[in-house]
C-alpha cells in the first residue's frame, strides 16, 4: 500500500477492495451496489458482485428478515469472486449492521446511518444496548453519519415529502463511498438523468444527495484518507457490465439471430429467473415473442408447440418450476424437438430459499423425468459465460434435435462482471435445416436419422411432410405409434446413444494447472470463481493442484476419464450434497471426495483453500464452515 497526496487528504493505493451496502429492502441497496459496480467497471477495474436479496419483498421495516445487501469486489488485477470478506461496510440500520458485521475485516471501514439507531430499530435488530455507544465496534474504523438529517437538508426546497426525501438516502451513501474510493460521479449522474429525467424534482434530489455524500467525505474531519484502485489489465476490447440473466437473454437473442430462427420464450414468473423474461420482452424488434403462461406446465408445453412450429423455443424457470415441467420435458425428448430449458437454480427443496443460490438441481436435470429420458445438460460458470452457454445450448439442440437443459444459478444470474463485447463476426453461426416438400405422395419418415442420429425437423406448412408426433413410443423410422417390445428397446437405446454421442463433438476439457499431480479439483457452474482463485492460490504456494471446470455435464467431455486418472486425489466442491461427485463416481469409478455447502451462499475462497490443504496435508488457517463428505 503506497500513499500519495491528492487535494487535501492523502490517497492510499490498493490492489482491490470489497464494499458492501446493506439496509432495509426499501432502502435502495441494490441500486446503490449496481451503480457502484457500473462506475467501477467504467473506470476499468475488474469486478465481481454478490447481490443478496431478502426472501420477502417487504418484510416489516427494520427487521433482520428485510435486510438487503449488495457486495462488490473491484480490483486492478483479474478477480473471480466477490470476496470472502468486506473491507468497507455501509449499514443503513441496526438490523443491517447485526446481520452483516461478521463479514467485515478487523479494522475495516464501517459507515453507519446513525439516524436509524433508535430504541425501536435497535430492539428489532436484537440489540439491548446501542452498539454505536457501547464500544463493541472499537475494532473497526467507525463513521457514524446522520444520513436522514443531511439528506433532508440537501433536498430542502424541492417540494418532496419526507418519505420521498428519505428515499434518497442511498444516494448519500453512494456519494460517500464514491469519495472514499475516488470514483467519478458522472456515470451515476447520467444514470439519474436516464432513470428520473421525467421527474425533475426527484432527479435533482438524487443528484444533490449524491453530491452531498461525496462532499461529506471530502470535508468531514472524520475521514482522513481516500483509497484508489487502479484500472485492471484486462484484454483489449470494449467492455460492459453484465449480469448472468442479462447474458442469458442476450445469448438467446444472439443464437436466434445467428440461426435466423425467431425466438419464442414461454415462461412463468419465478425467482430468480424472471429477469430473463423482463430482458427478452424488451427485444421484440429481434422478432422475440415472449409468452407469460398461466403456469409452469403451460410454459413448457407452449414451448413444445412452438418448437413443432419451427421457432427457436426456450423456457426459463427455477427448480420448483422445472419439477412441474418434467412431464412436458419428457414429451420434448420423445418428440425429439429442439428447445432449451434454462434452470436458474435456487435453494431447495420445495419453495426452499427462493432468493439464495444453490447447485442442487443437477440430478433433477439429469434424471428428473419418468422413464429413460436422456438429454444434454450444460452449465454456465460465470455471468458472462451465460452468453456463450445460451448459444451453445441452441447449437446442441438443433444439431441433435433434442431439448437441452442449461443450468445457471442465483449467484451468477444476479451477479455481474465485465463482459468483453464480441465482434459480430466472432459469433458462432448456427445452421437450422428444415426438409423441403415431397410431392406425389412419397412417404415421409419423421424418425429417419442422420449420422448424428438426429431426426429431421419437418415443420407444418410443408407440403407432403404431414406427420403426427406424440408422447407414445414411436416406431423407428416411420414415427408411427408402436407397442412392439423390440422396437421400444431400440428406441430407448437410440435416444441414449444420440445424447451420449454428443461427447465426440465437444471441445476437449481444459485443465487449469499441471496435467498430472497430487490433487484435481473438479467443479461446475457458478463455483468457478472460488475454485479458480483457490487452486491458483495453492499453486502459487507450490502445491500440485489442478482445476477442471465442467461446462458439459451430460455427456461429459470425452477426455475427462483420462484427466481424472492423472491425479492422486480428486476433490469435488459443490453447493449441494455431492451430486456431480455421484455422477463422476458412477461413470468413472473414481474415489472423489466432496466439499459440500448448502447455506444459500457461494463458496468463499478460504474454505476451498482449507479443504485442499487438508487433503494435501498442508496446514492452512481454519475458518471454513462447509461440511466435508467422502
Amino acid at each position, binding site marked *: 500500500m503506497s500513499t500519495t497526496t491528492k487535494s487535501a487528504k492523502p490517497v492510499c493505493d490498493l490492489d482491490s477492495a470489497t464494499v458492501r451496502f446493506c439496509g432495509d429492502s426499501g432502502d435502495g441497496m441494490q441500486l446503490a451496489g449496481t451503480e457502484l459496480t457500473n462506475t467501477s467497471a467504467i473506470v476499468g477495474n475488474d469486478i465481481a458482485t454478490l447481490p443478496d436479496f431478502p426472501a420477502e419483498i417487504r418484510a416489516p421495516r427494520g427487521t433482520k428478515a428485510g435486510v438487503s445487501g449488495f457486495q462488490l469486489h473491484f480490483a486492478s488485477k483479474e478477480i473471480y469472486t466477490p470476496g470472502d470478506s468486506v473491507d468497507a461496510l455501509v449499514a443503513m440500520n441496526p438490523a443491517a449492521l447485526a446481520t452483516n458485521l461478521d463479514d467485515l475485516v478487523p479494522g475495516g471501514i464501517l459507515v453507519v446511518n446513525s439516524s436509524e439507531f433508535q430504541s425501536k430499530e435497535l430492539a428489532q435488530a436484537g440489540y439491548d444496548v446501542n452498539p454505536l455507544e457501547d464500544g463493541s465496534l472499537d475494532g473497526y474504523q467507525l463513521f457514524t453519519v446522520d444520513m436522514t438529517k443531511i439528506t433532508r437538508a440537501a433536498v430542502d426546497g424541492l417540494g418532496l415529502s419526507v418519505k420521498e426525501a428519505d428515499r434518497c438516502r442511498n444516494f448519500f451513501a453512494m456519494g460517500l463511498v464514491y469519495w472514499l474510493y475516488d470514483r467519478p460521479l458522472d456515470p451515476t449522474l447520467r444514470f439519474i438523468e436516464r432513470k428520473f429525467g421525467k421527474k425533475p424534482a426527484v432527479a435533482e434530489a438524487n443528484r444533490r444527495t449524491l453530491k452531498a455524500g461525496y462532499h461529506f467525505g471530502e470535508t468531514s474531519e472524520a475521514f482522513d484518507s481516500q483509497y484508489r484502485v487502479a484500472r485492471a489489465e484486462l484484454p483489449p476490447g470494449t467492455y460492459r457490465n453484465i449480469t448472468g440473466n442479462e447474458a442469458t437473454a442476450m445469448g438467446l437473442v444472439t443464437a436466434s439471430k445467428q440461426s435466423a430462427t425467431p425466438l419464442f420464450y414461454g415462461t412463468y414468473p419465478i425467482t430468480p429467473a424472471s429477469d430473463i423474461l423482463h430482458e427478452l420482452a424488451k427485444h421484440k*424488434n429481434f422478432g422475440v*415473442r415472449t409468452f407469460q*403462461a398461466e403456469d409452469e406446465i403451460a410454459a413448457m408445453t*407452449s414451448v413444445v408447440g412452438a418448437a413443432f412450429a419451427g421457432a427457436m423455443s426456450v423456457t426459463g424457470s427455477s427448480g420448483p418450476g422445472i419439477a412441474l415441467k418434467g412431464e412436458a420435458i419428457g414429451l420434448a425428448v420423445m418428440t425429439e424437438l429442439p428447445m432449451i430449458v434454462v434452470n436458474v437454480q435456487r435453494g431447495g427443496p420445495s419453495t426452499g430459499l427462493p432468493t439464495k443460490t444453490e447447485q442442487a438441481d443437477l440430478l433433477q436435470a439429469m434424471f428428473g423425468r419418468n422413464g429413460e429420458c436422456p438429454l444434454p445438460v450444460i452449465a454456465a460458470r460465470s455471468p458472462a459465460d451465460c452468453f456463450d452457454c445460451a448459444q451453445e445450448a441452441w447449437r446442441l439442440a438443433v444439431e441433435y434435435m433434442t431439448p437441452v437443459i442449461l443450468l445457471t444459478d442465483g449467484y451468477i444470474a444476479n451477479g455481474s462482471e465485465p463482459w468483453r463485447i464480441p465482434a459480430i463476426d466472432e459469433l458462432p453461426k448456427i445452421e437450422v435445416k428444415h426438409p423441403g416438400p415431397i410431392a406425389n405422395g412419397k412417404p415421409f419418415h419423421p424418425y429417419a436419422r442422420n449420422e448424428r442420429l438426429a431426426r429431421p425437423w419437418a415443420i407444418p*406448412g410443408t407440403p407432403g411432410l404431414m406427420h403426427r408426433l406424440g*408422447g407414445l413410443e414411436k416406431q423407428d423410422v416411420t414415427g408411427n405409434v408402436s407397442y412392439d417390445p423390440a422396437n421400444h428397446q431400440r428406441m430407448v437405446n437410440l435416444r441414449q446413444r444420440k445424447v451420449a454421442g454428443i461427447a465426440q463433438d465437444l471441445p476437449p476439457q481444459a485443465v487449469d494447472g499441471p496435467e498430472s499431480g497430487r490433487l484435481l479439483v473438479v467443479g461446475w457452474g457458478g463455483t468457478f470463481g472460488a475454485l479458480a482463485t483457490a487452486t491458483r492460490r495453492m499453486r502459487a504456494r507450490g502445491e500440485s493442484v489442478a482445476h477442471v471446470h465442467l461446462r458439459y455435464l451430460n455427456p461429459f467431455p470425452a477426455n475427462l476419464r483420462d484427466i481424472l486418472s492423472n491425479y492422486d486425489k480428486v476433490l469435488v466442491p459443490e453447493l449441494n450434497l455431492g451430486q456431480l461427485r455421484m455422477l463422476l463416481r458412477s461413470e468413472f469409478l473414481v474415489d472423489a471426495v466432496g466439499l459440500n455447502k448448502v447455506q444459500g451462499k457461494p463458496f468463499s475462497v478460504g474454505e476451498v483453500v482449507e479443504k485442499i490443504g487438508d487433503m494435501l496435508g498442508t496446514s492452512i488457517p481454519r475458518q471454513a464452515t462447509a461440511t466435508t463428505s467422502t
Partner: protein
Amino acid sequence: MTSSALPVLTASDFASDQDVRWCPGCGDYAILAQMKKTLAQVGASQENTVFISGIGCSSRFPYYMNTYGMHSIHGRAPAVATGLKVARPDLNVWVITGDGDGLSIGGNHLIHAIRRNLDINIILFNNRIYGLTKGQYSPTSPLGKVTKSSPVGAIDNPLHPLSIAIGAEASFVARSIDVNIKHLGMVLKRASEHRGTSFVEVYQNCLVFNDGAFSHTTDRATKSDATLELEHGKPMIFGKNREKGIRLNGMDPEVVELGKGITEDDLLFHDEQAPEPTLAYLLSRMNYPEFPEPIGVYRAIDQPRYDALINEQVEEVTKAKGEGSLEKLFHSGETWTIQ
C-alpha cells in the same frame, strides 16, 4: 380461411393411413367423419392444418388425420396449441380434448386459452366418463353417477363445459351432438370460420363405459323435447310440433306452450352476437328434463386475438426501433474500452 393447394381436396384426403382404433360404435367415429368433410368444405389444406390433442380416447384423433398433429400430454393441448399458434399464426389449429382432459387435469389451460382468444378451434368431446382409463366418473358426470371409482355414486358437483367457456370470456361457444351429423357439420364449419377461439362441446356417446348418457337428445321419442336448436335472430321454439318455447320470466327462463294467448313474439329470441354473455350463460344452464338442451351457436362475437396482438406488437416495435441489431444491443448501456 385457408389458402389451399390447387387440387380441391375431398374428405378422404384428410384420412391418414393409420387404422382407427376406437371401440366399434363409439361416437368419435361420427365426429371424425364430419371433421374431414368440414375441412374439405372450407378448403383447408393438409399441410397448413394442425391437430393438437391431450390424452384420452378423443385425443387419438390427430393420428387419424392426414395433417400435421401432436398427441401431447394429459390436459395440455391448449397450451401446446398456444405456442404453435403464436409462432405460426398462418396455421389452422384445432385442439381435440375431452371432459376429463379439458376440464379436469387441463382446466387451467382451457380457460386461459379461451380468454386469450387465439384463433384456434377447441372441440371438447363430452362423454361424461373416463373412457381410456376404463370407466371412472369425470367432471361432467352427474351427481350420484355410479362408476368403478364411485360405487355408491359420484359426489362431485358436475361442471357445465359451456358455462366454463362463457365464464372464461369465450368469443365463440357452440354445442352439437355426435350422431346429429348435419348439425355437427354446420357447427364445425362455423367454428372453423370464426376468428378467435371457437369452443365447441360435442355430446359424444361412449358405448362401452357410459352408453346412453345423451340418449335423451338422440332418441326419436325424446329428442325434440330434449333439444332446442338455436338460430340467430329466431325465437326459441322446440317440441315435436314446434309447440313449445322458452320465455323469460324475470331473470329465469321458463317453458311455455304456444297458443292460448302466447305468441312467438313473447318468446326469447336468440342473439348470438349479444355483447354481454348473460343470455348465452343462461342457455348453458338449461338441462333436461326441466328444459330442452340448446344446441347450435350460443355466442359468436368479435374480440381481440392474442396471436394477432403478439405479432402486431413485434411489428410495431420493429417499426419504431428498427430491426434488431446485435451490435446495438451489445453496446446498449454504459461501455468502456481497454486499449
